[in-house]
């Protein structure tokens, strides 16, 4: 009996399935995009969430004053159809599109933005991403509870379609910030109908309640399974939107996602599994996309450590690494060696810093620091969060330092939260880190290493560096600004509180049916330009 069971099962399966039409096939006529989104989003409230999967969802559901240009470069008009900047660069006047509506038909007015920014800056809401708005006058003080009078904050509705924003400094990249979801408007009546302004657990984001102003609207939300959004007819640019639906799948396992793509269940994936990338490259897989991404992979050095506080030691460590070998033999997915902190090519910024792979120089620096041939050098720890890619690179670095400098390091991997906690409290010597730019301007990188920045975590405090960045931020003139930034970058690389390793790429698979999808350095692909065609 058991022997007859398996053939019977087979038959049943074959009959039951019939012809196999994949979701990708059927999505073509129906204009339904199947999107691999990496993990279940924390939520859909733009003022509370902090991650990339949330970003993909929110650019479909809501819209800010501007939107990122799919082909890179300056932002395009969003809710604001035009804007005027004062000569001193500190006052922005936005003229809102009169056709801008919420997904329930209500008109979108300037006061909506004022209320929304007040919401994200309300301390009791506990937003973890207020940084974008800190450039606005009075915003930081309001968020940190120094004042509770929102009228001191530099955002005002002049009339229904005119919004005036005042900044602390001329911030040349301010327009770029306004496509980030933390600056998005939310629908006041809807939010308040389901909780107070600062209620994190309010239910306004549930399907049926959700109201926002983007090209799509929330249709269904099945926890850990799928989120479906459908075309929003009230969107001001609805005529241009060709997709009818987007289905987001929170697939966290890379191998599973890869198989789903190959089986025609996804149009686009979130990542490519580590082992598959070099194979796909070699096979010239037409679905493989490897695109420059504004991010740097680096090792953070705790400059308060007795040995690591010596600049020569840090430079020795940096010069003993063969970055080319790491990207070609270890990460093997089109990454580029990094010789600066800010990725080159971001908004035309090309740093000229160099980090040579020079074991001889490295050894002599180490000797000058008092550790000739590595003798007497303590065994340091490389801390990283548990992940194969990080482990492989750490192993390679460990071997390179052993061979080129004669020193030993120990590899310590911790789970994500423990790793974060240790970095925050400075309980590490060398730790693996990555930084992705929030907007296309070098400031998003260089700013993090200024003294007293929470994201610094290296203990490096350099007054000259701080001064240069302050100067850069107080001028609107691009070439002068970049000159200051380059000087700061050179100073940074000569001090090496962080050891750059490679520049990120975005690696993913994209079905050839997807059109209107352009590579861009901050990886934002606005749904209103995307459509399916074979």
């Amino acid at each position, binding site marked *: 009996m058991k022997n007859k069971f398996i053939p019977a099962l087979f038959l049943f399966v074959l009959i039951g399935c019939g012809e196999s039409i994949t979701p990708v096939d059927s999505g073509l006529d129906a204009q339904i995009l199947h999107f691999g989104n990496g993990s279940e989003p924390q939520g859909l409230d733009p003022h509370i969430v902090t991650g990339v999967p949330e970003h993909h969802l929110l650019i479909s559901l809501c819209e800010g004053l501007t939107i990122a240009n799919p082909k890179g470069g300056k932002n395009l008009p969003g809710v604001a159809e035009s804007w005027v900047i004062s000569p001193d660069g500190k006052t922005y006047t936005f003229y809102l599109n009169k056709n801008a509506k919420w997904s329930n038909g209500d008109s979108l007015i300037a006061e909506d933005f004022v209320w929304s920014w007040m919401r994200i800056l309300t301390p009791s809401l506990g937003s*973890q991403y207020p940084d974008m708005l800190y450039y606005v006058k009075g915003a930081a003080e309001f968020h940190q509870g120094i004042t509770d009078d929102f009228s001191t904050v530099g955002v005002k509705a002049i009339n229904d379609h005119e919004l005036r924003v005042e900044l602390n400094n001329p911030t040349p990249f301010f327009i770029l910030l306004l496509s980030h979801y933390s600056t998005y408007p939310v629908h006041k009546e809807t939010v308040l109908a389901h909780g107070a302004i600062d209620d994190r657990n309010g239910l306004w984001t549930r399907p049926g309640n959700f109201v926002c102003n983007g090209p799509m609207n929330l249709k269904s939300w099945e926890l850990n399974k799928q989120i479906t959004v459908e075309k929003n007819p009230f969107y001001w640019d609805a005529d241009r939107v060709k997709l009818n639906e987007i289905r987001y799948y929170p697939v966290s396992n890379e191998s599973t996602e890869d198989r789903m793509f190959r*089986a025609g269940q996804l149009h686009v994936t979130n990542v490519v599994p580590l082992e598959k990338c070099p194979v796909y490259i070699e096979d010239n897989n037409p679905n493989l996309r490897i695109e420059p991404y504004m991010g740097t992979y680096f090792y953070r050095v705790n400059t308060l450590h007795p040995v690591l506080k010596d600049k020569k030691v840090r430079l020795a460590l940096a010069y003993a690494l063969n970055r080319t070998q790491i990207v070609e033999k270890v990460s093997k997915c089109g990454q580029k060696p990094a010789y600066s902190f800010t990725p080159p090519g971001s908004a035309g910024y090309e740093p000229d810093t160099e980090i040579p792979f020079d074991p001889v120089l490295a050894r002599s620096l180490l000797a000058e620091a008092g550790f000739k041939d590595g003798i007497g050098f303590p065994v340091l720890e490389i801390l990283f969060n548990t992940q194969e890619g990080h482990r492989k690179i750490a192993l390679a670095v460990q071997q390179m330092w052993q061979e080129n400098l004669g020193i030993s390091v120990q590899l310590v991997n911790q789970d994500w*939260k423990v790793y974060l906690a240790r970095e925050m409290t400075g309980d590490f010597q060398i730790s693996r880190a990555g930084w992705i730019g929030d907007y296309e301007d070098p400031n998003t990188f260089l700013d993090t290493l200024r003294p007293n920045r929470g994201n610094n975590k290296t203990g490096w405090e350099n007054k000259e560096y701080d001064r240069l960045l302050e100067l850069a931020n107080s001028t609107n003139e691009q070439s002068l600004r970049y000159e200051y930034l380059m000087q700061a970058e050179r100073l940074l690389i000569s001090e090496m509180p962080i050891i750059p390793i490679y520049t990120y790429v975005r690696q993913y698979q994209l079905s050839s049916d997807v059109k209107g999808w352009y590579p861009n350095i901050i990886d934002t692909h606005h749904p209103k330009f995307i459509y399916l065609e074979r």
Partner: protein
Amino acid sequence: MLQVILKRIAIAIPVILIVASITFFLVRMAPGGPFDAEKVVPPQVMKNLNAVYNLDAPLVVQYKDYMFNLIQGDFGPSFRYPGRSVTEMIFTGLPVTFELAFYAIIVAMIIGGLAGIIAAVRRNTLLDYIPMTIAMIGICMPTFLLGPLLILYFGIHLEVLPVSGWGSLTGDKILPSITLGAAYAAYIARLSRGGMLETLSQDYIRTARAKGLSEYKVIINHALQGGLVPVVSFLGPAVAGLIGGSFVVETIFQIPGLGRFYVEAAFNRDYTMILGTTIFFSTLIIFFNLLSDIAVLLMNPRARSEA
């Protein structure tokens, strides 16, 4: 027997409370909090976040509050997913994991039971060795090895089955159920074979044969019951193990079940979710063990008198 059941339930309640307490303090000992993120937030904001979730109260106070709510059946809000309560999340993932476990057990019992019975009846022949060796493979091969192999072959190579999902595409429940059920099929095969062999050597079987009953009738009417006793008593721990083993299958096949929720909660330090799921699983396991014990007692009069 009612007395036995009541006694067991009475013991179960303090056990669950102890489990809750231990887990509560264990989780809090872990470094890293639910709101630690890569982009560091100003201390003021962190203070606000902690206040919203009562994390700034002294630990003992938090414990008291939590246990108080627990007794009323309130597991609290998820720390990681604002707006979602733990109860809601558990009951979203639970039906899926249950269904998966159910199908896996069915697969295991059918394949395993049949294999074991045939192997016992045709002892020491090829029909004994082959199924038992395959059963051994089932026991020795990890799920995370079997799953991808099956997916590769049936999903990508033959293209007859979907590679992921649960209830979205036709036939997507087949491979996960087989993968999860495989190891249990193997155990059940061995157990049922052992049980059958023991029963078949009993006196009353010899009597039945001597009376002239056909072999078929002997097995169905007499041996089966005894042979299945070890299988049934195994079901309790089996369900417990299945719930644990579902993590892997849910990850490989992208199934939105409780197992995946749990592992992610542990990594995200979603305190309330971790606690809620642990307590829930404990209760479930205790319940299933009780059911399984009752079933054994009902099936086997001898055991009943020993109880």
